[in-house]
């Protein structure tokens, strides 16, 4: 069980969102797409050179700009908690 940034997940690694560090606008936009504390995500790919991170959440693909992804803290422990 370890906490890291969403950007630091490796491809195909699954994790649970622990914290979203951002203002009201950012929180709202993320939550609208289902990204909230306690939700499970799987990283699909990262476009290189500072490009967005692509994750799978609730079977939907979501692309998140790198700066925003860096403010999402995840936990990579998977015992279905």
């Amino acid at each position, binding site marked *: 069980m370890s906490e890291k940034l969403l950007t630091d997940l490796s491809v195909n690694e699954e994790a649970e969102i622990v914290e979203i560090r951002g203002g*009201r*606008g950012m*929180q*709202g*936009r*993320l*939550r*609208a*797409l*289902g990204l*909230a504390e*306690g*939700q499970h995500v799987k990283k*699909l*790919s*990262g*476009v*290189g*050179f*500072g*490009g*967005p991170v*692509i994750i799978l959440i*609730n*079977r*939907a*693909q*979501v*692309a*998140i*700009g*790198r*700066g*925003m992804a860096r403010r999402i803290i995840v936990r990579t422990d998977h015992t279905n908690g």
Partner: protein
Amino acid sequence: MAETCHGVTPKKTNRVSADILLVGQPNVGKSVLFSRMTGIRTIASNYPGTTVGYTTGRMRFANDIYDVVDAPGTYSLEPLDDAARVAVNLIDDAVRIINVVDATHLERHLTLTLELLAQGKPMVIALNMSDEARHKGIEIDVAKLAQRLGVPVIPTVARTGEGVRRLILATLALDIDKQKVPGIGYEKKGGRSVTGHPHILHHPEANHKGHKHIPEQTVWRRVGKVVNEVQTLHNHHHTFGQWLEDASVHPVWGGLVAMLVLAVSFILIRMIGEFLIGGGIGIVGNPWVELPFGTEKLFDVAWKPVMMKLSGLLGEGSFLHNLFIGQLIGGQIDFMQSFGILTSGLFIPLGAVLPYIVSFYFVLGLLEDTGYLPRLAVFLDNVMHRLGLHGYAIIPTLLGLGCNVPGVMATRILETKRQRFITATLISIAVPCAALQAMIIGLVGDRGLWPVALIYGILFVVWIGIGLILRFTSKGFRPELLIEIPPYRAPSWRALGSKLWMRVTGFLKEALPVVLGAVVVVNLLYQFNVFTYIARATAPVMSFLWGLPKEAIVPLLVGILRKDVAIGMFAPLNLTIKQLVIGSVVLSMFFPCIATLVILFRELGWKDGLKSIGIMLAAVIVVGAAINLLWP
């Protein structure tokens, strides 16, 4: 002034009361459903945010007429953005609501459903894309879902029309006199306040006054519970489509896919366009095969003899001859140069431009409906960041390559004023529309392919250059890309055809009168020698700065009406290749056409509109002079 290039006018300000209001998250197919119900064609695509503003229409059903409104897609009723604010106002005034949800992502869409239920309006849920859900092995117990939510749930497939009749029947069967008791997720405490809408509270630190909130954790828990009860997931195989989905956002493969897709798109546009014009099939240089077909041949074989007869009747040099036929070139009508209403006035829009409008919008429709565009946006995100934008700005830009008007309007899908300003300014200066491109290819292409490539190259550099400058000079928050990437879908040919038809007829309706009007005005001004005086006055700028003959001011001014007509006016000036390239670049940049100008000011406001025009003027002077200086 119509607001779009394609017929339907999305309303922006006035409040309307809908008999039936379609509400749902972006990209669930509200617009397609709306078209099914009202018979009104709308532009629907496979990416979020296609409906900017809202669309109203009438539905005739069982001898009654109902006003149907298609609300902009919104993720939540919390008024964080314009779309949500518009939706909230529409909900207030609506009689019945159809909540369109995506059957393949129930857990995400039900959060909005719970907020809507809490508004207490009579409501039906359209479980859309249920065919895709079946395909993906997602089984939903519809009866149970309806029972848990307390409102009717109707599975639909808007694309094919499946379930739409049942949906309408269920909607009209709603009891509209009795306001529904709010469903789960909302604890009713007293009456609703006038301004407060129950919505999910995403920001616990915010002020609670005048608002009704549904605690967020409660909503997620309830949605989770409902979804667990009604949804069964079956295993399914990794399809070819999913493999492609992974490849197109992959760091390495994504780049190759993007280059391949863009290259194929350009080749397709050129092949289809050239085929429709001249019947030739080929990619570069002379066509490999030539068929006796095409708009150019039609004009030459069928229209020219008629016009020559008319020319004889009117008598060369007479006022009417000048107006309808124009000048004879070597005793013959030249559709590019003669410049009469019935010669160039018809040939430019119908013979030279229309084929490229058809081919451009056909290919754009393919890119839109398959769902490739959001992937392109993701892939180009880091490049666009260097221009102070993010990847999604590529979508309005691509639309601008068809016509600047919908391109500038589509900047509304971007979050901040600053992004909208940069994107719209770049489109209006450095993104040539399909009509202009068709004429550049037609006119400059005769001198070889490289001058055409050079014009494109220069405009691309200008686009990047101004973007870089604006990034550092215009202030404002730079948001990050955050989009849902829709799955690839096989486009429906019917939907593709209908969208193409709308865009092409939209072009004809809006371009044809302006083109004819421009030809008349230009002819009249010539008769009264107005251009002679203007040309004398502006000669220093034209020749000293840009190396163009003084008469070249006329096309530049006409370009403010229509760019395609204007560039045709370079034809009789006997320009060198250098002058033709400078002229084409300067004409592309020098003021957007009047339709774009109006939309630009409306979207940006007076202050930013003027700023945008100022940037344009500075850029066109510098760029024109730079090419003139650097080109030996």
